[in-house]
């Protein structure tokens, strides 16, 4: 009753459409450059692992992944830990300027990264954080903290208020209530919020590239190295691309049951 005719065909066609470009990338990552350029083959006829070997043995390549993961993890930890108390405050209390504050946060989630690229460069150079993972992690807070507050507020609001009141009557102090009762109750929400912080920090390139040069260079910036005077090293580029998809695919698996609600920012 709640589905439409031909749904199997529609969903299958759409999934194929999603997977085809990714398959092409994977396909190319196992080919030699000679095979890529000279022939059009639907699967690698002489499969090679050479492209992957290059990435895993060359430090300038694999350090890109480590640098990216560093700032993504720092950012996720900062975002969640400051957003939790704020989400509770927005969900339970009214206070001076609460609505304006909420709107201001929201507007920062929407601010174009291109606007901030240059001022961030000045700011983080001035405080000597340029070219460290901290600069990128703090810069990404501008869109991840508002997002985390949003998602967590939705989840905190679905916890009945009576639970807070009972806990306080039982003599719980506020910090103890927060850690022992509230956090376990919204653990799935924290998981979802962390997933989204991870995701948006992981996929962002413009700020990450602007705020780093050598020591903290993210993988997405390293990938531009495949372009040289001799042309583009397609196989290597494809292999590097495939490896950036894997962390995302792994974290999706853990939150698959909450993805839909998370994308609705906890507000369905």
């Amino acid at each position, binding site marked *: *009753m*709640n*589905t439409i*005719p031909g*749904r199997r065909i*529609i969903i299958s066609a759409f999934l194929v459409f*999603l*997977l*085809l*470009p*990714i398959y*092409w*990338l994977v396909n190319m990552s196992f080919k030699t450059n000679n095979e890529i*350029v000279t022939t*059009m083959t639907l699967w690698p006829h002489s499969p090679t692992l050479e492209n992957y070997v290059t990435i895993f043995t060359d430090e300038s390549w694999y350090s890109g992944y480590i640098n990216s993961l560093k700032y993504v993890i720092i950012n996720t930890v900062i975002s969640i830990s*400051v957003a939790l*108390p704020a989400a*509770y*405050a*927005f969900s*339970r209390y*009214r*206070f*001076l300027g609460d*609505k304006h504050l909420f*709107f201001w946060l*929201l*507007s920062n989630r*929407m601010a*174009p*990264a*291109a*606007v901030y690229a*240059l*001022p*961030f460069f000045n*700011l983080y150079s001035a405080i000597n954080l340029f070219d460290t993972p901290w600069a990128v992690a703090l*810069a990404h807070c*501008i869109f991840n903290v*508002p997002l985390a*507050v949003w998602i967590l507020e*939705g989840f905190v*609001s*679905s916890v009945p*208020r009576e639970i807070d009141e009972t806990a306080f009557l039982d003599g719980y102090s506020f910090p103890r209530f927060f850690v022992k009762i509230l956090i376990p109750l919204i653990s799935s929400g924290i998981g979802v919020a962390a997933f989204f912080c991870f*995701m948006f920090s992981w996929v*962002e390139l413009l700020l990450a590239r602007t705020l780093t040069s050598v020591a903290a260079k993210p993988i997405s910036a390293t990938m531009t190295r495949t372009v040289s005077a001799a042309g583009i090293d397609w196989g290597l580029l494809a292999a590097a691309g495939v490896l*950036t*998809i894997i962390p*995302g695919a792994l974290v999706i698996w853990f939150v*698959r*049951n909450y*993805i*839909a*609600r998370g*994308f*609705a*920012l906890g*507000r*369905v």
Partner: protein
Amino acid sequence: MEKTVDQKAWFLVLPVFLIVAFSAVLPLMTVVNYSVQDTFGNNQFFWNGVGWFKELLDPNTDLGERFLASVWRNLLFSAIILAIEVPLGIVVALSMPRQGWQVAACLVILALPLLIPWNVVGTIWQIFGRPDIGLLGYVLNEIGLNYNYVSNDLDAWFTVVLMDVWHWTSLVALLCYAGLKSIPDAYYQAAQIDGASRWAVFKAIQLPKMNRVLLIAVLLRFMDSFMIYTEPFVVTGGGPGNSTTFVSIELVKIALGQFDLGKAAALSLVYNLIILIVCWIFYTVMTNAGAERPAKGGIA
């Protein structure tokens, strides 16, 4: 349930306030500062008043013309992708399997494009669309279409739009799916007893229930497409000519390419203002919709 008034809640919000203010207000001050000054290099700045803003909003100047053209281009792009992604997303959400392992599999595959770094999305389509080594470009040329996104405006647009549909339709579909999941079975049973047609069920039950999430979807997609940078930059670099130069690409060209700080800052502020206005409409509509729903949103 009414929220209690308590000013001490500010202490809970303070860390968020400080950290966002640090990364939003401080840099914005720099931008405002640049926007009213001119420089001839050597870090020497001169007061220029609202000169940059006048130039920016006057279509007869070079800067104004470029800005206006990029805004129209960007609005057209946003309109096209919304017109494709929203209906397609709804159809995909309605086609989702009902239960079993297929649901999890579909959700994971749907979410996959959303977790690919944006420059890799660009790279994937750059490769996929190339006539010599990409499947899409190769097939299109084999069946007789002269497709080349590097030299032809229309092909470049086709590639960028198709890429965005590939990248973001899943977001709309996942949001709609979350909305559909929250409809109790009783509604469908009632409709069945009334002998409602498939279309009537969609119009009277599913669409109203998806209202809220569709609103979020439309506005998130509008915002994100209005500040799109990385993906088209990787695929087309804003070309051929200027045909896919969206507002963000134009801004980065001026700021980091030509290092015209005054112009770039003025553009940033106007750009931010547009976003802020749309955001305000979004927020007002959403809080109004929120006021209508029952006191507890609850878990879907």
